[in-house]
């Protein structure tokens, strides 16, 4: 009898191994239908009269394109391609041909970004000498894995459109040495065009207080990003006098959260809290969490529901249902699309002409990362350097100051963080996100 039990358990172990192994299938073979990278789209006829291209530079992006985040990442990839098309897939006055590939760092086995796939992507990029820029990642937890690999490969510069975990660039005084450990060569090679969560979490806590809430319950998805922003929120909330009734991580694959929400509904001395803050991305069952919250505690007017940029996507609203999501808030770094500077508005116009209505907030960040990559390549050329030299491109990225981009005029600091710190809050109204105010 015991033998049979062992057989069963070993079968289970084998099964989980097999599932894990399936998670490492090459990212190219995914079912994201519209992510065909125009890698072979050479600028044939429109070639400038100068000499033909002397070389090919490759830019890759690594974003989760299997799972709910696809709604957001697809627009990022579209925007990156748009920027390349505007550059005619050439750089340095036609001397170099640009190639772009959109890699997927998610796997069907996990349904969201997969550590194994992201590591594989980073290693693949490190090994391909034609690659001069690695655009990604979407999830901070994924960035933590690929930064050290790319750091030792040149360093290969990595520009993220969406990572907001502060620890990736800024040392945390409670965790000495952690940030530095991402950069084994000591040279910084990671930058991001989006403001980090030390700003997002703080602004969110102040925002919740401004809604009139005095008690708040905090949930997170236990990822580097989600827990990170929730921790900053908690610390700030306590500072500004909000009562934090509890802070716990959820199981992101559970069928429902009715029991959890029942517990929270009496956590404020038998009553429901004034607000719930959720630090998570939409892939981690964010819509289900909101559904059960509304089922147990009523609409989002009664108990406010606030989250970070990970849930500011149409997929979150569609998943929960427009009537259930009505009134929920989410913050995103930057200004609303219609408040962008002229070059940003032009981007929105061009994007919508090609891909249709743009509602997702991260497309413009995707555009800006490609902008930065191209700018760095051009700068290297202009200085007489070799744009195929990874270290030179990386140095040029960090040298970007007062850049007139689609997000406004901004600079990178020595850590690779942007000088833009605006944070906009959006509320679900009538089935879509509507901006309700920009804060600093």
């Amino acid at each position, binding site marked *: 009898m*015991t033998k049979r039990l062992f057989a069963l358990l070993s079968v289970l172990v084998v099964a989980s191994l097999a599932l894990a192994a399936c998670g490492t299938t090459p990212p190219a073979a995914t079912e994201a239908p519209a992510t065909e990278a125009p890698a072979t789209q050479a600028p044939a006829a429109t070639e400038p009269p100068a000499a033909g291209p002397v070389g090919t530079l490759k830019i890759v992006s690594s974003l989760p394109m299997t799972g709910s985040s696809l709604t957001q990442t697809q627009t990022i990839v579209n925007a990156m391609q748009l920027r390349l098309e505007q550059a005619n897939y050439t750089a340095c006055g036609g001397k170099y041909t640009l190639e772009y590939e959109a890699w997927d760092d998610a796997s*069907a086995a996990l349904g969201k970004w997969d550590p194994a796939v992201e590591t594989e992507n980073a290693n693949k990029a490190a090994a391909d000498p034609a690659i001069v820029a690695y655009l990604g990642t979407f999830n901070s937890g994924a960035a933590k894995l690929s930064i050290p690999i790319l750091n030792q490969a040149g360093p290969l510069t990595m520009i993220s459109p969406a990572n907001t975990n502060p620890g990736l660039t800024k040392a945390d005084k409670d965790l000495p040495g952690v940030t530095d450990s991402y950069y084994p060569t000591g040279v910084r090679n990671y930058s991001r065009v989006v403001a980090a969560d030390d700003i997002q979490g703080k602004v969110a806590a102040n925002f919740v207080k401004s809604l009139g809430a005095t008690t708040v319950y905090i949930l997170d998805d236990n990822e580097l990003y989600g827990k990170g922003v929730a921790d900053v929120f908690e610390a700030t909330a306590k500072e500004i006098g909000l009562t934090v009734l509890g802070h716990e991580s*959820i199981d992101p694959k559970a069928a429902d959260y009715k*029991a*959890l929400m*029942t*517990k929270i509904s009496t956590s404020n001395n038998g009553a429901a809290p004034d607000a719930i803050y959720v630090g998570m991305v939409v892939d981690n069952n964010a819509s289900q969490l909101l559904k059960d919250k509304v089922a147990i505690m009523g609409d989002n007017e009664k108990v406010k529901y606030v989250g970070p940029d990970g849930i500011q996507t*149409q*997929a979150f609203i569609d998943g929960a249902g427009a009537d259930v999501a009505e009134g929920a808030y989410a913050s995103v770094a930057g200004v609303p699309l219609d408040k962008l500077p002229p070059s940003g508005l032009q981007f929105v116009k061009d994007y919508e002409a090609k891909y249709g209505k743009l509602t997702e907030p991260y497309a413009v960040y995707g555009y800006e990362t490609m902008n930065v990559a191209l700018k760095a390549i051009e700068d290297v050329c202009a200085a007489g350097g070799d744009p195929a030299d990874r270290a030179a491109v990386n140095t040029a990225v960090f040298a970007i100051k007062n850049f007139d981009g689609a997000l406004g005029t901004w600079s990178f600091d020595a850590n690779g963080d942007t000088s833009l710190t605006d944070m906009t809050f959006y509320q679900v109204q009538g089935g879509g996100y509507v901006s309700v105010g920009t804060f600093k």
Partner: protein
Amino acid sequence: METTKKKFNWRGLGVSLLVLYIVFLIGPIASLDVPSIVTAIKANPIQLIQFLIIGISNGAIIAIIALGYTMVYGIIELINFAHGDVYMIGVFTSLTVLSVTGTLDSKDPVKIALGLILALVVAVVVGAVLNASIERLAYRRLRNAPRLAPLISAIGMSFIIENLGLMWAAQAWLVPSFGTTGGASQKVFPDMLSVMFNSLGQDVNLLASSGLPLRFTIKDLLVIILAVSLMIGLYLFVQRTTLGKAMRATAQNRDAAKMLGIDIDWVITATFLIGGGLAGAAGLMAGLYNNTAWWFMGFRAGLQSFTAAVLGGIGNITGAMLGGFLIGLLASFSDGYLSTRWTNAWVFTVLVLILLFRPTGLLGEQTGQKA
């Protein structure tokens, strides 16, 4: 089943020490804080009943899916990993039926009721046919192959069906409420039951008049009624009908059953048909109860149901039901009094402990004697 009596039970001592270790050492890490749990129960004893209700409703769905695992394992000793995904297809099938028939937009209780019954029938048929086709395509040829071969084949089928769900969820022309956000995101399964009983579409709390702060909605009631009647029906079917008897015979000894003239292939197909049909029904129930359709939902549901089947004693139909309810309750209490994050850890801790004391599960395995 049989345990030999020994003079001193060293194994029992070891197991007890392990239990103590888990409770005292790992317990606090996984927020097993007994005093605070006692305080929480004392402060709000009625909430305990609420967690019980949530646990039973969730457990009912798990139990129905677990039946499919346990039946298949009982008869061909294969863990059908694709079973959870058949359940997911059941969710999408019923949602599509509700959408195509216009039930989603209707407020007429009669029309909704008819739509739901049709959705149930179609989901059961689709689940049954899908599950039987999987057996025909992926398992039958491997029936006499080493055990790992059909297992890997099952994992492959699971991936294929998950991707089918991913594609299905992108077909907004079929179900307009899928929206334009692609197949990967979660979709809404509208709360048709509440609309049926309440024109405002709010949850109907059957205990509202009692004045207690308890929620027992029409959804809970329906899920439990449907689950229990399906279980009783299945139990009677297996115990009382000729086909049921043939299934039990095949499970006990395939070769002997064959010699007695039982059409083994048909019996196995029938087992898969019934299991798949139950998964389809569970899909509609879960859709109505949790209001979500998601391509990935079959994976976790499958894992939990499989655990339930092992907990109750794999191959044992009553055991699967018991295991399902037990896991539902365990998860609900863990969510309520411990921490959601550790719920799975506790579910599997209990599984390990029960298997240590009773290696064949709570009610004992019912699989064939090795020929």
